[in-house]
Each structure stands twice: as structure tokens, then as C-alpha cells.
């Protein structure tokens, strides 16, 4: 849980990101109106120092775009992004640069994200060189060692001169994390950090993130795996079609889910215990495409409990009547 009681490290308010849809030749000639994908359609979230927020949802729900916008890798259409209290959603490339080292990202696939020709030492040192930090060569090496030690690749000497192909998947992901940590960021965005790793090593990487969080790092973890979120997140935000539909402390979202979408998602997560076989509540159809967002509540066409009002009324995130804590929010008019 967060210790820093005052201001969140990251605050995102009503963030909107759209991508234009190519009209094609016929569309251009016939002057079909330009359309866009509403990838992120009004997202509000916050991450405190020493806190792990898991952003969960199915592919295409906008969770990765949200993360990219937070890091200013894509430009938002509207909304506010405050990092350490400072509004950064409109900053230009030059002003962003010093901020970049304070917010780092770890990608899903450590087989793709590491340069195969660079030794571990060079991979971890590179961010320092790019930002012109780290002092002398010897001082930089010291920081590289320290970063490797933080990701529990020890002793660092054993790994410094290795190439990615000489490392296991788990070790590669640790190197990728070390390359992020060497700049001593305050916020780490982890986009599906373990989904490409073997089951047997996933837990180790997650525990590493957990320890970094304990030491004060704020982590925004993008994941589609609710079991992982349940075990490792402080708070969980559930996204559907560009919006957060439920958000709150992890245990509340998992054990006292309020939104019908969250409930359905939870019901279909396979449990480890074969004796625990519940009838999953399988939603029919697929997530509608983000070009044509349904009217009213965007979930209503697939919602098992939707009423007429749901087609008209677009619900805001609010504190549900029966929720146990005030930090628990859901966007459904029925709760």
C-alpha cells in the first residue's frame, strides 16, 4: 500500500486518444466522413509512489494505448496527465526529455526488446549515455552493476559480458528491467511483463516488481491476466472499450466485483483447483470495434443484466451503493 499520502505520482484525467481510420481510395473519392478509433475514451486513473496499479482488460480495450499516452509516446486528443504534480500532456519533445528518465517502460517480449548484438553491460549502460548521465566510464559501470543487483542478477560480473541469447527468458526480462531502473525512475510502466515467459519463471519477475514497489517505485502494470493482478496489484482498474469500468483495491475488485463486465471476466478465469469448477458466465460475441462505440453504456449490448436505461445513459465511475470501501468505483447505473 502507498505510504506517500499526499499527491499521487501519476494522475490521468479524462484522457482521450483517437487514431484516424484510413478511408481507402473509394472512401476518399466519395468523401466518406473521416472516422477514428476511440482507443482511449475518457480514462481517469492514478498511481502513487510505492503502489502497483494493474490495468486489466481484453485486447483492443485501450490499455496499451493508455500506457503509451502516459509516457507521451502517443499524443492525447484531450485530457490531463500530471506526473509529480506537473501537467505533461502538452509538453514538447525538448521539455519531455528530462522527464523521460523518470518514467520508464518494460515491454512484453524480452526476446524483441533487447538488442541481440549488445552485451548486458552495454544494454543497461545505453540509457545513461542517451541521457548524458552517469559521469565517468567507471562510475557508469558501477551504476550498471547496481541496476543488475537490483533486478537480482547477481553477482553482476556473471552477467555483464553476456549476450541476450546466452540468457533465459526470465533473465532477459530482468535485464530489460535493469535498463529501465538504471535511470532511477519514479514510475515504471510494465506492459504484460511476464506473458511471454515460461510459467516456471513468471513468479520471480513479478516478485521482483513487487520488491521494487516496496522500495517506493510506482508501477503501472498492463495485463490481461486477472490472477496475476489479484496476487500482485494494490489496485486494479478494469478497462472495456476505452473506458475504465471498475476500479478499486485489488481485493475488493476481485472479491466484491460490482460491474457486470468485471463479474463475467472473473467467472471465466480458469482456477488451478480442479474441484473448483464453477459455471462460467460466458459473454457471447466479441468486444465491439472502437470505431462504433455503442450508445449509452458501451457494455450494454453484451451485458447480461442491462435494462432499457443502459442504452441511453452513459454511466460515470462512481462509488457503488453496496461496495465496502469508498475507494471502490464502478461505471454501471445498476450499482
Amino acid at each position: 500500500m502507498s505510504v506517500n499520502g499526499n499527491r499521487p505520482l501519476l494522475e490521468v484525467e479524462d484522457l482521450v486518444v483517437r487514431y484516424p481510420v484510413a478511408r481507402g481510395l473509394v472512401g476518399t473519392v466519395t468523401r466518406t466522413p473521416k472516422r477514428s478509433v476511440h482507443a482511449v475514451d475518457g480514462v481517469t486513473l492514478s498511481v502513487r509512489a510505492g503502489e502497483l496499479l494493474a490495468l486489466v482488460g481484453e485486447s483492443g480495450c485501450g490499455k496499451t494505448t493508455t500506457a503509451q499516452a502516459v509516457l507521451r509516446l502517443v499524443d492525447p486528443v484531450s485530457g490531463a496527465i500530471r506526473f509529480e504534480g506537473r501537467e505533461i500532456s502538452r509538453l514538447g519533445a525538448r521539455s519531455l526529455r528530462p522527464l523521460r528518465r523518470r518514467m520508464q517502460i518494460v515491454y512484453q517480449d524480452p526476446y524483441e526488446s533487447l538488442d541481440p548484438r549488445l552485451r548486458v553491460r552495454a544494454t543497461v549502460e545505453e540509457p545513461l549515455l542517451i541521457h548524458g548521465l552517469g559521469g565517468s566510464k567507471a562510475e557508469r559501470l558501477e551504476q550498471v552493476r547496481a541496476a543488475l543487483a537490483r533486478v537480482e542478477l547477481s553477482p553482476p560480473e556473471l552477467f555483464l559480458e553476456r549476450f541476450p541469447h546466452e540468457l533465459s527468458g526470465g533473465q532477459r526480462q530482468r535485464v530489460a528491467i535493469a535498463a529501465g531502473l538504471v535511470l532511477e525512475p519514479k514510475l515504471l510502466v510494465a506492459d504484460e511483463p511476464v506473458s511471454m515467459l515460461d510459467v516456471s519463471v513468471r513468479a520471480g519477475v513479478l516478485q521482483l516488481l513487487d520488491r521494487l514497489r516496496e522500495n517506493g517505485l510506482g508501477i503501472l502494470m498492463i495485463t490481461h491476466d486477472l490472477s496475476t493482478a489479484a496476487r500482485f496489484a494494490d489496485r486494479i482498474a478494469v478497462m472495456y472499450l476505452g473506458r475504465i469500468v471498475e476500479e478499486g483495491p485489488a481485493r475488493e475488485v476481485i472479491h466484491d466485483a460490482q460491474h457486470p463486465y468485471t463479474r463475467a471476466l472473473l467467472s471465466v478465469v480458469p482456477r488451478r483447483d480442479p474441484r473448483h469448477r464453477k459455471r462460467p458466465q460466458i459473454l457471447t460475441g466479441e468486444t465491439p470495434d472502437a470505431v462504433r462505440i455503442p450508445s449509452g453504456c458501451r457494455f450494454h449490448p453484451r451485458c447480461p443484466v442491462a435494462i432499457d436505461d443502459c442504452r441511453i445513459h452513459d454511466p460515470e465511475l462512481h462509488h457503488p451503493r453496496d461496495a465496502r470501501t469508498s475507494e471502490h468505483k464502478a461505471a454501471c447505473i445498476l450499482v
Partner: protein
Amino acid sequence: MSGLLQVEDLHVWFDLQDGGELHAVQGVSLAIDPGERLGLVGESGGGKTTTALAVMGLLPPSASAAGRVLLDGEDILAGGEATIRPHRWVDIAIVFQGAMNALNPVRTVASQIVEVLELHGQAKGARARVQAGELLESVGIPAGRGERFPHELSGGMRQRAAIAMALSCRPRILIADEPTTALDVMVQAQILELLDALCRDFGLALLLVTHDLPVVAQLCDQGTVMYAGEIVERGSVDDIFHAPRHPYSRLLFAATPDLDGEGDEVASIPGAPPRLDRALEGCPFRPRCDRAFSPCVSLRPRLQTVGERHAAACHLNGVPEDARERQR
């Protein structure tokens, strides 16, 4: 037990470019009865997929196999392509993880199924088209969508189409290799429900190959855990989860976070699987095992019965007297 499919002492070697050999499957035996669902689990490189490919006779040219694969008692491995061909797709079919790779991108889904039906003499012309429509509907693809190209379908729909195609000749055994790995959890649930219904309603036997233990726990009756090319434990999924007799099975479950296992310590298994391009000595899992003791160093444990339909290859269950002899 009738034993619809029996694999006996299967070995697969791959020729390596440097002249060496990789012993990917090292004496695997398993059996599937009609309508049974068997889950084959373990981490990557354990030999699960290679076992499945060997059963289908789909190993690449660089591989050689030994042992027996019996279908209704007939060895379909010994005679190579000639003995497996009459049974492939007709009696045993397979679906892979990436459905896109199994489907031809420039032909509509329905026409591909028609082709399979005609090729195997199941039906011709208009009849084949009707049957293709029925097959697609049986896996939950509405009639009209069959006229679409693979890229026009979502990942879930493509996987359904691949399953429909695999079922064209009404096989009795379906091998599903990581059928839901690339899919979202809701779509995964839809596909698992489909596989469940196919087994229940048509008596299809299922060999589910996956690294995802919870999927096996939910869908299968029997589980088989593979490590370093061999089976280290097999039994009912209930036994393997609640009373595992091999540390690898226990640790694999412990490494998997569970939605309800809030307080559980989720722990990685330290180390990595052994290389299979050199001979293994002792228990292949010993370097990563939390309960290894002296016999594990030199003596390779063999699969031994530890209960009803439950077997494990671990010295903790007793070191057989004659093991040293057999080991030679």
C-alpha cells in the same frame, strides 16, 4: 480399458546442425480412451508438442522417432507416412495455437472445409458445401461468416474455424496444441466450452497440450506432466493438484497465481530445464528440486505406480531395489 490411442515408449531425436542430436522425447507412454480428456502440461522445451506431432506423423524431416503409436491396436508409427496417412484427419486431427497458420489466407473458410471434405471423400459438391456449413455452425460460426476470408474473422472465430476443419472427417481424437494461448480470457472461455461440448456430446477424445495448468484443471479428467522429454507424473487432475507425487508438479502449481489464492506464496522454480542434446544423468529435475537427495544424483527415476491410475517418476516415492540394475 479399450485404449483408443496408446503411445508406448516413444522417443524422438532431432538432428542438430552441428552434427549432434537432441533427444526431445525420451520414452513417453500414454493412453487415451474414447471421450477422455487428457491434459499434457509442462514448460516449453519439455517435449509436449513434439510428442503430439509424432503421434500425428507430422515431425519435420530432421527428426527421427522410435517406439509405438497404437490406434485401435494398430501401429501407425512403424510404417511411416504410409501407415499414418489413412488415419490422419480421419481418426486423429490436430489444431494448433496460431489458427491463422492453419488456414489458407486467400480462400474463404467454408471453401477450405469443402476441400477437406472432398479430398477425404466425405462428400462432394453441394453436399460438401452443406456439410461445411453444418460443421461451422457446430463450432459456433454463423452460416454467413463461412464465406469470409480468415483475416476477416477475429482470433476466436479463426480458432473455431480451425477446429471445424479438424473435425471435418469426424475424427475420434482431437489433439489441441495450446488452442487458447493467444486468445483473450473471454474468448478462451468460449473455446474451452466448445471443446467441452464436443467431448461430451460426440464422445471425442481430447489430448490438450498446454503450459496453462488452470486450463487443464478445468477441462481435463487426466493430467500428464512432462519435463525434459519424459513424463514425470500422470494421474487424475485432482490427484495431480491435491496429492502431487513429483516435486515438479507441485512447484509448477505453486508458480501459477490463482484468483482465489490470495495469501499463497507464488514462487518461481529456480534454474532452467536441462539441455537435451547430451545424456542426462540421475534425475533431470534434481538441480531445480527442493527435495532432492542422494539417489537423485546418479539414478534416473522411472515412472512407478503410486496409486490408482496415478504414477510418478520420483525417488521420494521409493527407490526400487533393482533400479541400479535397470539403470545400466
